[in-house]
């Protein structure tokens, strides 16, 4: 399994290279460059902008800039933030943990609520429950987080004063887990609710199918009670498609966090990416995007490895 994981990782390197090249070129497309951000100021002369472009190496041809960037990346140098005047690596990694808290919270909420909802509706014979699930899916998948987040802030934050207005913790207080959770609850639920709808349908469909399988009937005939029958025998089989979806959704969850982070002023990677893009801080943008690329690859790999844990028939070779 280790050899398989290693081979998969090495095999994805050409794709990473290609993606990095594409991203680098895409950043060059819009008119104006990092130094032009200064040009809005009346006291910044065109000469000053040229001077800064030369300092940052932006006056060199694009392929040269890319190769320099790539060479540095291989050596562990992620570039230097134009605006923050410190290594892009520091800027990005500082925010990664915050984003993982948010996406982790959203993932946990999405999974728990999605599985619970899916199981409950699969077991229930009520047609109304099924219809309700369908309706919830449609709503959940089509309501954008910037809208639901704003509503949640308005109701729970302003009207009822249950949740804080944003951020990750109280200012000037030492770190406390309860404080972090208090700040995390609303954004995690908003971000995770999109997936509750989707995942509950997968669980619902998979479970319904598995419950009709012969081995479940056999278990029933042997006198296994209902709950163990569902959770021990049917659910692991029903969970396989969920794992696939999960692997594909984790990167989307991180990018989806961008909007939620802005609404709840969560100091994460997504908000950093937004401000860096607007400020044309290319080294930080590239560092953050490459981190996301790595995340996609790792998530896909973990998904494949998880199959082996869930399904003993899968062998890696």
């Amino acid at each position, binding site marked *: 399994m280790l050899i398989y994981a290693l081979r998969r990782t090495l095999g994805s390197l050409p794709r990473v290279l290609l993606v990095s090249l594409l991203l680098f070129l895409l950043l060059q497309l819009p008119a104006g460059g990092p130094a032009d951000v200064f040009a809005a100021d009346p006291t910044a002369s065109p000469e*000053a902008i040229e001077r800064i472009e030369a300092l940052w190496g932006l006056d060199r041809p694009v392929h040269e800039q890319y190769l320099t960037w790539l060479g540095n990346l291989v050596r562990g140098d992620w570039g230097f933030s134009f605006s923050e005047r410190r290594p892009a690596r520091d800027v990005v990694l500082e925010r990664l943990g915050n984003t993982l808290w948010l996406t982790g919270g959203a993932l946990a909420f999405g999974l728990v609520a999605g599985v619970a909802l899916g199981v409950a509706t699969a077991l229930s014979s009520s047609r109304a429950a099924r219809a309700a699930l369908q309706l919830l899916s449609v709503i959940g998948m089509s309501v954008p987080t910037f809208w639901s987040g704003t509503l949640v802030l308005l109701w729970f934050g302003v009207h009822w*004063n249950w949740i804080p207005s*944003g951020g990750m913790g109280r200012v000037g207080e030492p770190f406390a887990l309860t404080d972090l959770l208090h700040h995390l609850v609303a954004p995690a639920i908003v971000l995770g609710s999109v997936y509750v709808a989707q995942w509950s349908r997968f669980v619902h469909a998979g479970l319904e199918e598995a419950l009709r399988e012969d081995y479940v009937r056999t278990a029933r005939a042997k006198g296994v009670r209902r709950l163990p029958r569902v959770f021990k025998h049917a659910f692991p089989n029903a969970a396989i498609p969920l794992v696939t979806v999960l692997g594909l959704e984790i990167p989307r969850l991180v990018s989806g966090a961008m909007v939620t982070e802005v609404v709840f002023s969560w100091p994460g990677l997504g908000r950093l990416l937004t401000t860096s893009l607007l400020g044309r801080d290319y080294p930080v943008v590239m560092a953050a995007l490459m981190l996301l690329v790595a995340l996609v690859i790792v998530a896909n790999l973990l998904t494949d490895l998880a199959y082996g844990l869930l399904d003993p028939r899968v062998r890696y070779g």
Partner: protein
Amino acid sequence: MPHLARPAPGQARPRRRRPLRRAAWLVVVVATLTLALPGLAFAQGRATVLSPQEPSTLLPHLDLLTLTHEVQHLIFDCLYVVGPDGDYLPQLATEVPTVANGGISEDGSTYTIRLRDDVRWHDGEPLTSEDVRFTWQVITDPDLPVPSRAVWENVVDVETPDDHTAVIRFAETNVNFLGRAASDACFVLPAHLLDGEDLVDHAFNRAPVGTGPFELAEWSAGAFARLTANPTYFGGAPDLDEIVVRFTGGSQATRTALQRGEAELALHIGQADLRFAQGLSGYRIEQGPAHAWWQFWIDNQDPILEDVRVRRALAHGLDRDLITETVMGGVVPPQHAILPASHWAHADDVTRYPYDPEAAAALLDQAGWDQVGSDGVRVRNGQRLEIEILNIAGQVERRQVVQIAQDLWSDLGIMATIREIDGAGFPSAMAAADFQLAYGWFGENQEPTFNLWLGTNWQRFGDEDALDLLRGVSSTVDRDARAEAIRAFQRIVAEEAAMLPLAPRPLLNVASERLDGYAPTLSGSLWNAHQWTLR
């Protein structure tokens, strides 16, 4: 049989389910407790300031972002600032130099600055004239990405005859020094900490040491900066214990925080938040002067727009009152001269173009655009009167203004279209004269440098005699004489309708009624935070 003595599977199961149920209860209890925690409690003597953006670095001179300067004003001091009445106030200097008090040489090329002798850096070291000299060296260091070296780059030498005297020498007359030394390029740096250091990547950038009324205690990236009072501040110990600057990142978070009463001040709210802020109780809207204004650039060498009658028609066809009363929320008056009324050199007696569609139509007729096609668009020698307006994408109010202008000009028989581009591409498009009309804002310094006319000149204004008026300003030591030349130039531009000023662009701040002493000036909103008190 022995196996019958074992508990049946059915009996064991309820016991196995119990931990699950207990865990579920735990989750419910914890969730309820977390949700029910009361809202943020306020530390005594703490003022919270909301800032839509985060400073990129706290090492002064490396960032042009106004909000960075706001925070830097808490930590650092300037030689001078601009006070509430628009005049210079000494900060690190003992007095504002003039020709009369001997601080400025007769030819305006030498400034002698006397520093206060009671100023100490946060680490206890005294401020000396060497720090002023070092600051000049940093701003002009060729290896540092300093975005603006204006004025400082013309300094020939900074002499330090004694610890509290700095003599700034220019090769020739320089009338812009005071304005520059009181603006964002004013913060004095500690030579004893930074001399000989590599400032590009320095710990100081995120752990600054200044002379200011507050010291940085904590900077949580993307979230907030917490600053604590400097009890030994030379301007008097601050009344507040601390100031927290929260980086909201957007208008939604700002609104929520204001609605919950969590902030004493919200900096630079957008036009879109104006109506919301007007409806808030316990808060007032304050305009921070910025010497900035919205305008339409006109390409004066465009084949259609080089005709002054067409430019005047556009000016007469633009209902400035309509735009300031609606989109701009009724907080600013229309502007007619190319310097806003907040500026000391503003000319009030320029030619005005009141909204007058009939006068505009007559001017277009005179200019030869007197045929009207079946689609209502004017035609001259077979050419349709088509004009494109360049705008920066992404801001609703900007687009609304441009759309109103488009409608009004269309009523005159002008086929006006809008092209929107990304902000960073705007300067290069303008510099390449890839526009006919363009909407945007511009800001001028306390001592105007006229980069808009003598530098970029995107509008391709070609009246050299008029431009000579501006060129003479920088060598005129007498302020009244300068003002007269600047006003004469504004009258020419208005007469020629070479630019279409629309309205001032003040910085809009929302201040709590609890906050006393808050007095925004051209130097920003936080320059006098040591004088703030909370009711």
